[in-house]
């Protein structure tokens, strides 16, 4: 923008910067707590650096769980979910966006119910299904229920509808089959929606605890949240914020790095996304 800086514009800058700083305060204090000695209350000494700074919280948090395995498992889990989701939401999204068939609205409604029913209340039946499939205590078990995504289907349905239908017709006249139409017409034009979906899918599954915890027992298949959970369970001692913050920061670090690296791309790719 080449607009001159008016006082209103400066005020707006100041406002959003102030808000953003306020928003960052919890993160700032979380980092601070993670480097302060355990049980060193914020009132002790200098409010910022306390008596001393230490890595002890990170070291004790690291001892609690087999973190390298948990990191690997979380990556496998979120990637394994996302890759399959990309296929299922593309197919279902296209069908609901562009094809006419009896029962379309009913079937869409059924799919959308998934967003409304909290998975946490269906644990027993879903556990039984996983056992019947012979998947108990495997990484596949953690992924399966998420392979179909109502959120993604809705998002892609929306995005595909934005694509001018003439492009599909033109491609068909050129003799393109469905897969080619998807590959050369729909998918390139809706990449932003895929990116948006990936962001949502990765961050929510990265932080998922209950379901992976219920269907796995071995540490060598369990994700990060199970390791993090160990740091929360200190009810016989009291709250140990330092260690807890250290663990939380360790767990979200990859997500934060991912976001910072791709943040420009995320936002820009949203620009032409279907959800505008």
């Amino acid at each position, binding site marked *: 923008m080449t607009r001159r800086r008016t006082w209103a514009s400066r005020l707006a800058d100041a406002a959003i910067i102030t808000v953003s700083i306020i928003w960052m305060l919890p993160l700032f204090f979380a980092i601070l707590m993670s480097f302060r000695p355990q049980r060193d209350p914020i009132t002790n000494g200098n409010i910022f650096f306390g008596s001393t700074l230490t890595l002890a919280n990170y070291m004790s948090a690291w001892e609690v769980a087999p973190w390298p395995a948990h990191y690997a498992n979380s990556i496998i889990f979120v990637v394994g979910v996302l890759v399959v989701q990309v296929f299922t939401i593309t197919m279902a999204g296209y069908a609901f966006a562009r094809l006419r068939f009896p029962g379309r609205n009913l079937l869409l409604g059924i799919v959308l119910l998934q967003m409304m029913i909290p998975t946490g209340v269906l644990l027993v039946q879903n556990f039984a299904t996983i056992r019947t499939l012979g998947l108990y205590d495997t990484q596949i078990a953690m992924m399966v229920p998420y392979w179909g995504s109502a959120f993604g289907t809705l998002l892609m349905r929306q995005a595909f509808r934005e694509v001018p239908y003439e492009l599909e017709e033109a491609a068909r006249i050129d003799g393109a089959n469905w897969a080619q139409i998807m590959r050369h017409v729909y998918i390139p034009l809706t990449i932003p929606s895929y990116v948006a979906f990936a962001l949502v899918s990765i961050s929510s599954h990265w932080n998922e605890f209950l379901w992976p*915890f219920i269907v796995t027992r071995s540490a060598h298949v369990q994700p990060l949240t199970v390791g993090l959970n160990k740091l929360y369970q200190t009810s*016989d001692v009291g709250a140990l914020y330092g260690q807890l913050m250290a663990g939380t920061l360790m767990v979200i670090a990859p997500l934060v790095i991912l976001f910072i690296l791709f943040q420009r791309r995320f936002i820009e790719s949203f620009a032409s996304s279907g959800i505008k």
Partner: protein
Amino acid sequence: MFSRDVCRRLYGVLAVLAVLVPLGVTSAQDTITLDFYYPTAVDGPIAQILEEYAQQFEAENPGIDVNPIYTGSYVDTRQAIQTEIQGGGTGPDVAVMLATDIFSLAEEGYVVPVQQFIDQMEDPEAFVSDFYESLMVNSVDEEGTIWSIPFQRSTPILYYNKDMFREAGLDPEQPPRNRDELVEYAQKLTLPNGERWGLMVAIAGDFPIWLFQSFVMANGQNLVEESPAKVYLNTPEAVDALKFLIDLGSTYRVQPEGGTSWGDTPTAFTSGQAAMIYHTVGSLTSILQNADFEVGVGYLPSGPAGEDGTGYGTPTGGGNLYIFANSTPEEQEAAWKWVQFLASPEIQADWGAKTGYIAARRSAWETDILQELVAQYPQYAVARDQLEIAGKEFTSYRAIDVQNIINNTVSSILAGERTDIETALAEAQAQIDSLLAEYQ
């Protein structure tokens, strides 16, 4: 179509699994593998410690493999086991669950009483009596059958700041013995404008029942007696306990109104915001590490029910070892060996020293490891000796629901949300009674 292909891949995965899964099972023909589920409620490398115990046990017991499996909090553990068994799975062979889970686990048919294994021991009497009675009282049902063995146990104690006692002209070796002294000392120790509180009872929050119970017991009527089918909530003793807890904040002004939160009270104590606190012995290790003053530990002050010990009110808490019903008799035999190993004086002593839990049997305290600990930190001995006068922790049939009712009622009274104490307790008692009606 993609769908077909995805299906084909899925079948591929399934086929591979179908081959792999039975392999794992059949190869374990002559070794017995025990799944041992454990929650954690303290910090530290618990998984490593238990893994070491398992290795030590396996070396001593060839043919038995122990597989320690972390299952979250106590609540998570219960949910994991419940989901697994209701969903058609087998569940663990041994698990650490709350001592107070006894009646719900028994009613579900999830566990078998360990009594049957104790009976086969050479000297059952000697084994059982080595455990503190106040802990065993939560292991038995109405008929006296033992269902579980104490493992990681705790009890609330009074912590006090000896430096502040000196400063206020109090004897640092003499913690308050009864409620009058508690109030008197706390008043002397309190500084104006919330600069320092004489006392913090860590009773605010969603689980007030534990410390609430200690005040009720000290009034002479526990929330539960021998029968798990009868709960005593709407009693003058409970009303008085609640009034006293409220008075501590609003009349005597020696603690923040409504008490303080469970998680932060130890830190408030070590940072000098409170001169005395009620908390669990589980936090002793971390309090000793973090306090830059002399830490005193005392029994919970006795209530009006008497000075000679009857007015003491100390529940116990923590987890016991349960053996599961879905296991084969051979697995159960092996499980019993593992339970005995974990409950052995040596392991109890080592576990206590490493975690801060209070070793559950007397002989454990004669081991070098705990003798040295007590020599260095006599505070641990106070918690141990208090076990002699401790009472039964609250449990009953439908314990989860009844506890929810009591917690909700007590927390809304303490928060000042309900001021009609008698009515609130009467309503809660009516709900509890209707829940327990079928057990009468």
